[in-house]
């Protein structure tokens, strides 16, 4: 029996040779070779592209670098949050585009979450009609390309709305026409500024109050009515100030000047179509996420919460929502990013967002590489910042396990 295990001298040397296999049989060395080859291929491809590009740029006499930033842009931008004219630089034009992107993305995200949560909860409603309606809404809007929806709304606004002189006037002071949507705005008054400060102060106070009430409840078990008190402060304080300053009620009503309305608050049909299309499309996805998140919380949780005597409102806010949010937030983040990225479709309907301005810049300067690189960097930056913020929020919400 033993002879089977004790090898001859020849076998031992053979075994030794197997101990030091050739390098293509050694996983560690093979790994190095693989990586060197992969990196080498990527490097060669980049070098090939780089030399081709250099040659092409030289031949077509296209300038390189970001020198065009400080040159005069020479094109007008339809709408802008900061003052801008064609005589300004490319850098300023691009910044205007960036601000326009942020404007539509931020408004869009807020409206999308509100609408999406509403539709998502409606889908779970006990009311059959409402649930069916919400299901139809999500099915319909999810399955139509967002660009088509943008074209649809833009076409609708352009063809169905009348010219400025025959403006559609649904409410007094509100005018819809094919140049834009106009709403009255309160006349400027010094009291509004104070009211804004009061509102901010009340919000801070409410936050402090909540922390204090929670600490006290943890220590003594006494519950302080935080919500009514804070709501009272947040609404009441500015209201008292408004009363005290003589109830300014002047409205800045839009009025026809020449061929256009002036005054009040207004936005263009391009912005309207872009916002409407993005919000409707994305909210359908958000609704699905919200529904799935709520359904992911097991029924036992609701029953357990009810059996310890919580009211229905508290069951939702203390037991269901915190658990549902954990499921909802990661996909919700990617939907927000999708909305921001899809806002780049503005270029198709003529809203001057960052991509549209960058596209004009590419066409005027011919510097395609810099232009496309800028677009990519800006969206990457937005994506990274949003992901970082949402990850931070998600971590705070995450399950703390022992």
């Amino acid at each position, binding site marked *: 029996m033993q002879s089977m295990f004790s090898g001859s001298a020849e076998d031992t040397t053979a075994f030794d040779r197997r101990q030091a296999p050739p390098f293509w049989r050694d996983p560690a060395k093979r790994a190095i070779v693989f990586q060197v080859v992969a990196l080498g291929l990527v490097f060669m491809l980049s070098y090939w592209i780089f030399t081709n590009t250099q040659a092409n740029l030289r031949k077509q006499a296209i300038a390189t670098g970001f020198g065009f930033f400080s040159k005069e842009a020479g094109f007008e931008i339809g709408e802008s949050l900061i003052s801008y004219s064609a005589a300004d630089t490319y850098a300023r034009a691009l910044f205007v585009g960036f601000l326009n992107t942020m404007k539509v993305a931020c408004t869009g995200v807020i409206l999308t979450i509100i609408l999406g949560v509403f539709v998502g909860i409606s889908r779970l409603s006990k*009311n059959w009609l409402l649930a069916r309606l919400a299901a139809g809404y999500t099915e319909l809007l999810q399955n139509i390309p967002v660009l*088509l929806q943008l074209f649809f709304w833009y076409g609708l606004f352009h063809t169905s709305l009348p010219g400025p002189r025959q403006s559609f006037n649904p409410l007094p002071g509100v005018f819809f026409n094919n140049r834009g949507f106009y709403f009255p705005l309160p006349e400027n008054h010094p009291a509004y500024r104070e009211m804004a400060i009061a509102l901010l102060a009340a919000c801070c106070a409410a936050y402090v109050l909540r922390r204090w009430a929670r600490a006290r409840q943890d220590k003594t078990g006494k519950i302080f009515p935080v919500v009514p008190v804070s709501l009272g402060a947040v609404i009441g304080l500015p209201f008292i100030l408004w009363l005290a300053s003589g109830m300014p009620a002047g409205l800045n009503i839009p009025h026809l000047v020449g061929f256009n309305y002036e005054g009040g608050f207004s936005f263009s049909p391009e912005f309207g179509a872009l916002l409407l299309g993005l919000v409707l499309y994305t909210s359908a996805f958000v609704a699905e996420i919200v529904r799935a998140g709520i359904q992911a919380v097991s029924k036992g949780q609701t029953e357990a919460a009810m059996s310890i005597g919580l009211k229905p409102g508290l069951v939702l806010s203390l037991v269901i929502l915190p658990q549902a949010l954990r499921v909802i937030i990661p996909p919700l983040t990617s939907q927000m990013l999708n909305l921001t990225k899809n806002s780049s479709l503005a270029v198709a309907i003529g809203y001057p967002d960052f991509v549209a301005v960058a596209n004009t810049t590419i066409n005027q300067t011919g510097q395609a590489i810099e232009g496309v690189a800028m677009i990519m960097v800006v969206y990457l930056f937005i994506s990274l910042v949003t992901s970082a913020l949402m990850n931070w929020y998600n971590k705070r919400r995450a399950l703390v396990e022992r």
Partner: protein
Amino acid sequence: MEQTSISLHTIEEVKPPVTSIGVIGWARKNLFSNILNSLLTILIAYGLFRSVPTFIKWAFVNAVWWSDGQACNQASGACWSIVTKNLRFILFGFYPYEQQWRPVFAIVLLAAFVFFSSFRRNWNKYLLVAWIVGLTLIGLIMHGGFLGLPSVETEQWSGISLTLLLSIFGLSAAYPFGVILALGRRSRLPAIKTLCVVYIELIRGVPLISMLFMASVMFPLFLPEGVTINKILRAQVAIIMFTAAYIAEVVRGGLQAIPRGQYEAAETLGLNYYLKMRLIILPQALKTVIPPTVSILISAFKDTSLVVIIGLFDLLRTTHVTLSNPEWMGFSTEAYLFTASIYFVGCFVMSNFSRRLERELKT
């Protein structure tokens, strides 16, 4: 004795009250369960009552179906003539008029393939071969140049043919690329892992439109002098690069869901990396991610509409072009509703399929 006597004749079954069964019971339970619900029901019913008849009147009763643009301007309803009169252009674009039976045939063939593949009992390795043969056949029929079929260059493929071409070939090419990227991201080799992570995150962080811009304005600069590739192919490359990153993330999810024991068991059997992945890991991982892969197919199908922006004539662009004809200007609602319904049918069928599959695979 009297107390113990039990009546022996059968009692007639008591029916539930009429308010808790049938239509009334259903309505009470689902529509009027409490005051809030009743109010909501009445509100929605009123809204539907106001909007649905108006819509039907516009879309069907007062609609014009087969007229010219002049008659449409007088009609108070929808002008579906824009669709019926331009149907062949919207669907097939610049594909030679008398050759348009070829895209029709290709689409029918494709639909048959999709229908056949949607049943799980037909899933085997011959199906893959059949798909490769089928797609090649479709490509050949569309391109022509044999058996007396005049050849049609890809530049002329437009409308729905281009939409389908971009999405189907895009996905078939992106899928293997995405799987390789996912494996790379899970690799133990740091350089390869870094390359894959950078690629995936970079692509996922930017909009598809920037990739398409890159394809249309930057790719020509990347190539050596004198070499040009056509615009459709460049857009196709951009779509493949973009979709692959998303597929990679889906596949990575599947790879992560495979228990460690499977990897270890495969290694114990002495399988090398390639065999381990091909025989043990990927078959399980790819099966678990079929439903999310179908969602990617759906979004790839919808996203092909973005090629409008770089000037390719897909289904959306042909609709757009029709609208710029002075005769049909101003009937965008009808035209877009028609195009939307085509996209809707395609996506709806796919998403229902994905849902059915999810139920079947959840054993």
